[in-house]
């Protein structure tokens, strides 16, 4: 079953990839969707088995074949389906199915329709390998694989050179992270002699005489990988650019699934992180910095997808804060809810873009709520969910993060709260500018704007429902002991006596007094309210339109230009490397190494010409040379 679950999407990819060209678009699209949906069904069944039936082992393990066996280096091509994987799998296949469906309509007019579905299926396959692999190398397989699919899909519209550039940027930044991850893997193997999660954690847990310094190093190296995949400082700049891809891609890969792989990795390696407070601290501060910075940049973006992209980066930062604080459940919880509402938002924005005939600039929109009621409604729900409207999914997950941050360090809590607050500002800004006010586009008439077809709105509705009720998976304690903490219990399952818990070190319940809890809640809600009121006042009541980038000044300009990070990277890394390539290629290699070698040749030729001069054709000289030769020989021999 497990194998089937993983390989169904691959089958979809192969079928679409080979036969797709000859299939009608509808079949091709539904084929892809069905493959993912099949996986989802199997995953759901397996999940039920796993949690419902106590006789089942704590994980389903399947070894397909030995991938590499060299001396004592041994890696199996094997999968495991445990509780953490299950959650991730459900998100991936579930949201994946919805987005596939959505894409059938969204991509309907595209030439590369079948290709698109093939890529999406391939992505799902790789993502499943990532989360279902039973060892770090399998994770790395999926890790690289999703990076590749991301590359393929960002650059899906290959005729556009900028899109291609964005795709490459995404892939390369991911690879930088991958290198760190790879080094981390080597260090793991060096230290523990295996890649299998179970064996590694057993050894880590047994504290097999390895110093925490080694674990810290492993944790940090793994985190470099996570930085790349989950778009953390300093490797985050690819994600906003990745919006070049079709919108369903952004929803699936760059919001719901792939970018959370970093979170998954850290949760998976909890045993290691648990031993390294330093690494956790690093994770937390980087998450925090990323969160705030991305949120600030989001304030001044005018591309609807860019705003969402920076929002994603910011939310991922929040998750890392949770991880850094040791609140793994909270992080995973936010992963889930974020998957719901961010996918919703992206799909909603896709619907807007679709309705606006591929216009992405919010300044060209306005007043869309009348033309696109379903989109408007679902988008509103998404916005509310992400900004933390009470009792929507985002409210619970975000609060849990904030609370764990508070328990860890009030300063962190404060900063995280700021970040969460800014979320409200930019989200409502975008929302109001897009859907309220007056229509501002000059190219397309207002009458040409239309609501999306059912195939697109249906997933929106489903996701909207999920965004509302998603909090149910891990309700806080104050809502009642019996219904709360579902996810927490899931992850804290002790393995039923066998050794395979998800979290080695069971999380302590956050010991906060109810007053403090309520206080925190109030603070969070009030920040939300302030943001809502301010933006509503500015963009709806006053009808302000964000000014163009050129008109920005001061801090606004800095924000609009994303803190000039891309430019700084260009100056600091890209240009020097390219310059070095030129210098090495044109001077060191061509003139230096080759010149040195050719020097022997020209040297020989020089001597050759010299010898030709000696051979001047005059016999008298020859005779003299000869006699000198004789004389020297005699002198050399006789004395």
């Amino acid at each position, binding site marked *: 079953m497990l194998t089937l679950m993983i390989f169904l999407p691959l089958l979809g990819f192969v079928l679409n990839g080979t036969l797709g060209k000859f299939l009608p678009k509808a079949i091709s699209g539904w084929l892809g969707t069905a493959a993912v949906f099949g996986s989802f069904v199997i995953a759901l069944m397996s999940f039920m088995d796993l949690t419902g039936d106590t006789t089942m082992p704590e994980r389903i393990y399947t070894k397909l074949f030995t991938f590499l066996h060299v001396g004592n280096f041994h890696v199996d091509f094997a999968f495991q389906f445990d509780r953490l994987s299950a959650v991730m799998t459900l998100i991936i296949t579930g949201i994946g199915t919805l987005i596939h469906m959505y894409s059938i309509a969204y991509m309907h007019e595209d030439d590369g329709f079948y290709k698109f579905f093939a890529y999406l299926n391939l992505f799902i396959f790789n993502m499943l390998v990532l989360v279902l692999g039973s060892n770090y190398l399998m994770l790395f397989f999926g890790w690289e694989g999703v990076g590749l699919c991301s590359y393929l899909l960002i650059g899906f519209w290959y005729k556009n050179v900028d899109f291609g550039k964005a795709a490459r940027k995404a892939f390369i930044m991911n690879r930088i992270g991958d290198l760190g991850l790879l080094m981390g893997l080597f260090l793991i193997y060096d230290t523990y002699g295996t890649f299998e999660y179970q064996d590694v954690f057993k050894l880590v847990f047994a504290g097999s005489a390895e110093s925490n310094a080694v674990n810290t190093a492993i944790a940090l190296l793994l985190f470099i990988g996570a930085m790349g995949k989950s778009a953390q400082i300093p490797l985050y700049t690819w994600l906003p650019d990745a919006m070049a891809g079709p919108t369903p891609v952004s929803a699936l890969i760059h919001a719901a699934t792939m970018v959370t792989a970093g979170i998954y990795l850290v949760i998976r390696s909890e045993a290691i992180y648990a031993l390294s407070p330093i690494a956790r601290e690093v994770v937390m501060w980087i998450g925090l910095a990323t969160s705030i910075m991305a949120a600030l940049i989001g304030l001044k973006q005018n591309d609807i997808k860019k705003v969402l992209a920076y929002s994603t980066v910011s939310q991922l930062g929040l998750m890392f804060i949770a991880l850094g604080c040791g609140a793994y459940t909270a992080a995973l919880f936010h992963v889930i809810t974020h998957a719901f509402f961010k996918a919703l938002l992206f799909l909603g924005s896709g619907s807007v873009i679709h309705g606006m005939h591929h216009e992405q600039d919010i300044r060209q929109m306005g007043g869309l709520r009348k033309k696109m009621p379903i989109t408007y409604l679902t988008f509103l729900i998404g916005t509310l969910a992400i900004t933390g409207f009470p009792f929507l999914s985002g409210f619970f997950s975000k609060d849990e993060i904030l609370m764990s941050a508070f328990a860890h360090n009030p300063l962190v809590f404060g900063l995280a709260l700021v970040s969460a607050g800014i979320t409200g500002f930019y989200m409502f800004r975008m929302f109001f500018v897009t859907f309220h006010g007056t229509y501002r586009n000059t190219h397309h008439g207002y009458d040409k704007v239309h609501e999306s077809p059912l195939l697109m709105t249906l997933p929106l509705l489903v996701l909207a429902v999920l965004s509302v009720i998603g909090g149910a998976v891990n309700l806080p304690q104050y809502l009642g002991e019996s219904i709360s903490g579902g996810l927490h219990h899931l992850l804290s399952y002790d393995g039923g006596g066998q050794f395979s818990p998800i979290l080695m070190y069971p999380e302590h319940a956050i010991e906060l007094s109810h007053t403090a809890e309520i206080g925190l809640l109030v603070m969070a809600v009030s920040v939300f309210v302030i943001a809502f009121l301010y933006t509503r006042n500015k963009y709806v009541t006053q009808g302000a339109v964000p000014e163009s980038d050129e008109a920005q000044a001061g801090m606004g300009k800095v924000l609009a230009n994303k803190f000039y990070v891309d430019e700084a990277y260009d100056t600091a890394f890209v240009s020097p490397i390219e310059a070095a390539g030129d210098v090495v290629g044109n001077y060191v290699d061509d003139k230096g190494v080759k010149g040195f070698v050719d020097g022997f040749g020209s040297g*020989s030729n020089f001597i050759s010409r010299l010898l030709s001069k000696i*051979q001047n054709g005059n016999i008298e000289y020859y*005779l003299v040379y000869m006699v000198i030769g004789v004389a020297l020989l005699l002198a050399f021999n006789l004395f």
Partner: protein
Amino acid sequence: MIALFVTFFSAVALLFLGLNKKESNYSVFAAISLFASAGLSWACSANLMSFGILESWVPANMMLFGKEQHLFSALLAFIVGLIILMFRKNEIIGNDQLGLMMFSLCGAYMMVSYQHLVMLFLGIEVLSIPLFVLAGASKNNLASNEAALKYFLMGAFSTGIFLLGTAFIYGGTGSLELEMMGIKPSFMHAMEGMPLPVLINAGIVLMSVGLLFKVAAAPFHFWAPDVYEGSPNRTTLYMATIVKIAAFVAFYRFLNTFAGIADAWKGWISVLGGLTILWGNIAALNQTSVKRTLAFSSIAHAGYLVMFLLMADGTNTWILWFYGLAYALASVLVFSIANQLSVSTGKKDFSAFNGLAKRSPIVGVALVVGVLSMAGIPVSAGFNAKFYLFSFAWQHMPWLVGIGLLGSAISVGYYFKFFKHAFMQESEERMPMVDRGWLLLLASLILLLGAMPWAVLNGIF
């Protein structure tokens, strides 16, 4: 001895035949008689035949007729036969010239089988004097005249030096016989540890200079490029192969008598060998004329063969034999192609080879085989020859082998000029090639010697 007889009398016969029909071409007759000489000599070496009557006439201390001598005679006769055969069409060659070439070959026979310095001296002169004439045989060609004069003057001069050395040796050892000469110095050296008498030492040096001049080793090689370039192609080829092989055999036999005092000459001879290798190869790099390039190449080959002199323990003559055969086959092949091309295009530089591969792929392949063999690249006779030579010389003078390898590497630089022009350049001119079958046969012979040398050597030695 039988080879000498057959060669001499067929030469005389040729001269007489020439009296009757002046314009006839007797190359085929000459070639057949030379092949017959070679065959008979080989038969003697393999004990299939014996000409004891002829050989018993020769006093034992004058000439030696062992297996090696027969084989070398056979080799020399075979090569000259080949040269005459390959050049029979391109230049009209009078019977007098053929006769002279065969007379000269008689000198070469003497040089490989001498036991007395008189025979060596006579051999050298019989070899050289016809060659002075042959070098100037194209009388209307100023280059040929110049070559003849240069060769003659320098040859006579080196003869003088050679003779002075002979006189010193005579005075020092009291004998002119090969077997007697070495006894005294070896004895002195071994028993008393005395310094070598100046007479002997100087004698060895001066005689060696005379022989080194003949093989064109640096710094006594200056005549060679000029003379090779100026002489008619056939003569050049003859000089580059026969003279060299004969002189090396003579040299080897000479030094072999002084094997007991090898320390006295090994050093400087190997230095000269190294100098020759480098000089020949480097100087060839910059040449534009094909013949001159090949001349320097032959100088370089002389340098490699100097290695052979260093292992003067009398057991490895087969290496020289094989090297001579390999080198001669390749030279004949390349020279005859170059000759045909320069005749048909009128060019003396490499551009004569332009477009050869396209016009005549068979000749192109033959050229490739010949040149690769000269450069010593497997699978070719040249590689095996060099391999045998280098691997045996290593024990005697490793650094010289190193220089030899370096020289081989440099040599690629000019050998591949042939390919550059034959394969990369286009040509408008038509180049009728004759004797393609023969060329291919030669090439296959080279390949055969390259692919299964041991079988061939086992059959012969």
